[in-house]
């Protein structure tokens, strides 16, 4: 798997396959992206992965664009494009055909059951993603505190999450973290 000669081919293979296994969306797949990018292919260090995650959360658009950042760091603009298309393409094609099929068949029982069955899986994956990034980002007790406060505020209030990201960035800038 890791023996591809071209880095672009490795990106396409890695994210194209991941696309079809990303149950619950991009945030669930972050743990697997970390495994592929840091542990398997050594495209990024732990710290770089946490940085890339932070940048992807700061920038507008769907969360999946973290793969654009990973792709860029592997192979520049071509890598960014290849990783993004590979991560979005297969599942988009699948969605297109499944929705057309359901339009015709109208048998709604199985999709509902599969969906209900996938909910606990995607929550578990998302929690694992959080843990994996936290192991890198939360190195001090203040860092842990920022994570807890951001989680509590986002859970209990309707404050725009962008403010929490900016506050975290300011604290980091000030050298508190």
């Amino acid at each position, binding site marked *: 798997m890791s023996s591809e000669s071209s880095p672009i081919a490795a990106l396409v293979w890695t994210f194209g396959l*991941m696309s079809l*296994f*990303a149950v619950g969306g991009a*945030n669930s797949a972050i*743990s697997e992206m970390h495994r592929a990018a840091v542990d398997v292919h050594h495209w990024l260090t732990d710290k*770089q992965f946490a*940085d890339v*995650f*932070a*940048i992807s959360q*700061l*920038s*507008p*658009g*769907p*969360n*999946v*664009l973290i793969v*654009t*950042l990973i792709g860029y760091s592997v192979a520049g*603009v071509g890598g*960014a494009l290849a990783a993004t298309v590979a991560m*979005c393409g297969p*599942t*988009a094609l699948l*969605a297109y055909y*499944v*929705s057309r099929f359901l339009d015709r068949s109208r048998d*709604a029982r199985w999709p*509902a*059951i*599969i*969906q209900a069955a*996938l909910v*606990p*899986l*995607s*929550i*578990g*994956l998302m*929690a*694992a993603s*959080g*843990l994996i*990034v936290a192991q*890198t*980002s939360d190195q001090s007790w203040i*860092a842990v505190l920022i*994570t807890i406060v*951001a*989680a509590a*505020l*986002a859970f209990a209030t309707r404050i725009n*999450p*962008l403010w*929490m*990201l900016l506050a*975290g960035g300011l604290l980091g800038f000030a*050298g508190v*973290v």
Partner: protein
Amino acid sequence: MPPESPPVAAPAPDASAPSPPLQPGLLELFLAFAKMSLAGFGGVLVWARRSIVEQHRWMTAEEFNETFALCHFLPGPNIVNLSVVFGSRFRGIAGGLAAFAGLVGPPMVIATVLAALYARYGDIDILRRTLAGVACAAVGLLFAVVLKMMMPLLKRRDVTGLIILAAVFVAIGLIRWPLQIVLVVAIPLSIATTVLARRMVKA
């Protein structure tokens, strides 16, 4: 999103359906998805609903929920799936591509510029510290989503669901097994327990 809602589609457009009041063109699809995508910091779904249901009235709230339910049960980025399914419902494959390009294209350009800046200046100490702070908060936001999604399971006292959740968390987060292997075991298991649980409720 009601978990029971069947992802039955709205009447197909080619069947000369009378219900959708407006038929967006390709450029309109592209622009609408580009706008909601660029407005969507930390998640595009809220903006997608606002734009499609409230602003443009291209779908009713129920139709939107059903379409999103379908996109949620499929793998991959949900909102990307939504753009393709939504666009193709109105304008076929070209419509799907236009919505997809609007959703992913402009923010991808921004992400690429940010990646280039990071590659160039990522070693500067102040930037490293700042990003470290952002990452701490971003992880917190992720945990908040986890908590919000767990609440229905906790309220229902869905023990098997919580066990499966915990098992996946341990396998991926702590043991670090590959995703594919974990899912090949966990998906059939979870579907089987869901079917069993529903039969027991009915009986």
